[in-house]
């Protein structure tokens, strides 16, 4: 039993790719989103509550999961607008173009890094939620980012 300490700077990693192989933690051409301030994996199932006459507490049943991955980042020029020459088309086009083109991407959220045995969550979906903001107080461009997951999230190890 141990907490997963992320302070070393090499643990909580969000990697994108146009194929699943390119999105795996540590993949050579994986697009690691830099300058991420926080990342959240949402995997809560949908719940419908209902009342019955013979109970003073409500009952519930589950519906489909609505999965997503969200976070906030400092906007990096290459990852936002694309890096020419990249073989990974998500990296080539950048987050903004991939989002506006509604291109499906594969992703992983590494919890412990990219070393053998490290845990991660993977899936595929669409980039959304980009809302870059600039102000003199902030000094740099900031943006939220969200991946609206298409289907299941799956846990795996490197």
């Amino acid at each position, binding site marked *: 039993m141990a907490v997963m300490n992320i302070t070393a700077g090499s643990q*909580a*990693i969000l990697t994108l790719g146009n194929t699943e192989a390119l999105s795996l933690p540590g993949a050579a051409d994986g697009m*690691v989103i*830099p*300058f991420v*301030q926080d990342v959240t994996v949402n995997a809560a199932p949908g719940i419908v509550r209902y009342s019955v006459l013979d109970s003073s507490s409500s009952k519930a049943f589950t519906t489909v999961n609505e999965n997503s991955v969200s976070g906030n980042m*400092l906007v990096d020029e290459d990852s936002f607008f694309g890096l020419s020459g990249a073989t990974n088309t998500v990296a080539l086009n950048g987050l903004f173009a991939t989002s506006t083109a509604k291109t499906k991407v594969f992703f992983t959220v590494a919890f412990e890094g990219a070393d053998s045995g490290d845990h991660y969550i993977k899936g595929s979906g669409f980039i959304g939620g980009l809302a870059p903001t600039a102000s003199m107080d902030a*000094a*740099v461009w900031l943006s939220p980012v969200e991946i609206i997951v298409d289907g299941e999230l799956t846990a795996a190890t490197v």
Partner: protein
Amino acid sequence: MSIRTLILQQLANTLANGGVVSSDYSLEANELPWNASGQPLYVKNMRVVYVSEEEEAKVQLYRTLDQGDVYQTETLVQAFLSEDAKNINANNPTVIENMLNAKDIVNTANGFNVQVADSGYEQEIEGDTITYTFEYTFTTI
């Protein structure tokens, strides 16, 4: 080039060109405002502007999960000027205005991404001497 050096460079201009140098005022470009026989040099040498060494603090502006952190540098520089309170020079308001505006020399063209640039001064009269203490504060990224 340091922020202090830039401010010295600006103040070294003539009064008409945004500095303090004229027949009545001058700038001490080398010495810091140290005390001679218990008296600060800027009190001993009236109408001579002295600029202190800068004080700096590096503050973390953003923390990121990959430790690509962004820091801001907070810099404080002080400048000092004394005058005979009984006989304020006619150019005094221009000198003060130019000293306040000297902060503008710290800019992107001179190598600093300035987020905040403030200047202000306090004055104190002791005996027949009025001393202006200017503070320049900068936040740079």
